[in-house]
């Protein structure tokens, strides 16, 4: 394979992984549960900080990353219990509540941990193809993104929990009337969403500068990806990420990052205009 061709694939996989990993948690929390979670970035930040903290304590990176995702998930469960569960019927208020939460968390982190944390360095080294050198860790990110997608699909489409969870999110009262422990299901689902956000932070922690507001870099992309995906996030998120990654990657490569960024947003506007219900509406219609 020529270096150029590989490079295109590599870049594409890189953007795709970024979109999927940042959007996966939100796909559940926002796409399925309907909570406009403005604190999504803070769960990502949490995952990153815990990872770095553990690595600095001498924990091996992969274990630290898993532990960080779990920590974020547990925090998610607590947040769900204390705050979010009041807002399932009022998604627009959830925006305000989680925004408030996000302010509190970022600023508290600044006060407690300080404005910046020392990085831990990227593992896995690099490899060369032709004139180009690539970071191997980026392939790990891509693999993780694919794993997350597959995992989500299996959990929510194939397991007992998944079927009941989806039912709960579509009509909680009815699901209760059929015997679902909706409170618990909500808490677990939110926890999974927060955990995936934490995982995103954990995976990107070695490659990024850690500051309390770091979550912000993920938020626009993740919301856009989930929304473009449409109502059925399990079907829509992956194609949405594929599409956006292709657009972004092409524009980045040929016109630079500014056009890449502006172009992606313009594409978002156009895609929604053509498919006002998002990508999954087409897929659902096809699928039947």
């Amino acid at each position, binding site marked *: 394979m020529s270096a150029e061709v590989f490079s295109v694939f590599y870049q594409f996989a890189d953007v795709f992984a970024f979109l999927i990993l940042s959007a996966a948690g939100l796909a559940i929390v926002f796409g399925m549960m309907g909570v406009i979670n403005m604190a999504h970035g803070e769960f990502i930040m949490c995952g990153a900080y815990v990872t770095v903290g553990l690595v600095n304590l001498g924990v091996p990176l992969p274990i630290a990353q898993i532990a960080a995702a779990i920590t974020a998930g547990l925090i998610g469960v607590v947040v769900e219990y204390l705050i979010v569960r009041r807002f399932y019927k009022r998604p627009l208020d959830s925006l*305000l509540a989680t925004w408030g939460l996000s302010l509190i968390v970022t600023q508290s982190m600044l006060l407690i941990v300080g404005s910046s944390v020392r990085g831990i360095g990227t593992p896995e080294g690099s490899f060369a193809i032709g004139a180009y050198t690539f970071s191997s860790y980026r392939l790990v990110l891509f693999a993780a993104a694919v794993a997350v997608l597959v995992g989500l699909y299996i959990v929510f489409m194939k397991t007992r929990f998944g079927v009941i969870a989806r039912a709960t999110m579509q009509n909680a009262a009815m699901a209760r009337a059929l015997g679902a422990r909706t409170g618990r299901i909500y808490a677990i689902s939110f926890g999974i969403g927060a955990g995936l956000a934490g995982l995103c932070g954990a995976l990107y922690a070695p490659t990024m500068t850690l500051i309390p507001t770091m979550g912000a870099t993920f938020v626009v992309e993740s919301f856009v990806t989930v929304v473009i995906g449409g109502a059925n996030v399990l079907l829509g998120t992956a194609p949405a990420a594929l599409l956006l990654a292709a657009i972004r990657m092409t524009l980045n490569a040929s016109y630079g990052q500014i056009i890449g960024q502006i172009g992606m947003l313009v594409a978002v506007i156009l895609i929604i205009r053509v498919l006002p219900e998002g990508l999954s509406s087409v897929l659902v219609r096809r699928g039947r």
Partner: protein
Amino acid sequence: MIKLLEGPQTLGRGPVFWSCFLAVLAGALIYPLFADSYDVGNFSYFLIWIFMALGLCLMWGYGGMLSFGQTLFFGIAGYAYGVLAINMGGGTTTIAALLLSVVIAMIAAGILGYFMIWGGINGIFFGIVTLSATLVLAFFLGQTAGPEWHIGDARLNGFNGMKGMDPLAIGSVYIEGSALYYVMVALIVIVYLALRMLVNSGIGNVIVATRENPQRAEMLGYDVRKYQLLTFVLGSGLAGLSGALYTSWGQFITPSSIGLPAAAMPIVWVAFSGRSDLTATLVGSFLLLFGFQTITVYSQQAALVLMGALLLATVMAAPQGFVLGIGKFVADRLTGRGKRGEADLSAASTLKTDEA
């Protein structure tokens, strides 16, 4: 006409309410006589933002369109004012610049609105499209630092912002200090009363009907798209008014007034205040602007934590918004009944809310 000042769409009715309204207005009018000139100026500054909040309240609370684009039109009008004021050369022409820039924002809103509404975009998709458009403008303006980016004599000047425009003026007299304050109060009163009349009119009826169930509204013979477009253009135009006034006030505007997190602020004000009522939005936004500034001045690094806690506590304790919550509480006490609030709660679903 006058009858339209009251109606089902606006909270705050009857002699008690209007007496309060007049009392507050009178208070506002005599305020500059005994207040520090800085505080008068600061108050006018808060009022600048209220138009944007009222516009969002109209679109979101009444029309059901959650627009993340208030700062887009704020920015368009803000920059337009700058370009026009610089090129037309100050003095009384700044008034024309103000009006024209609002018109430009409305035209832009008309184009974007037509594109979205005729394309059948609604709900959260509406929010994401407006957000994307907003960010596109912010990114675009951010990279216009070079001298090649200019319109006439006005340099866009990238992230550092456009400056050098005159503030509002009549002849060679700048409208500043108390004069600006009175202009702002007058504008607010006019806009507020006009919006009340609008939402209580037949048009307002259709706007709320469209929010509730656009399909049903269409089945009653209304071209809902036109009403949505009207709502969007008016609401965005008000954001434009804020933008033009802001530029004129500070003689400066930058792309960061447009992009995140500025774009989220109007939503926060309106949600905090209670989006379903104009009066609540007016009062609440003012209080919040004032509160946030005060918190920021006095609490140093804890400011953001306190602001966050304030918002969180509000939504948890007063689900319909802070001002609306208090307003209803008072109204219930006064009238001895709480029809509206109660029904609001129960109407949310035929089945019991799932919380416990």
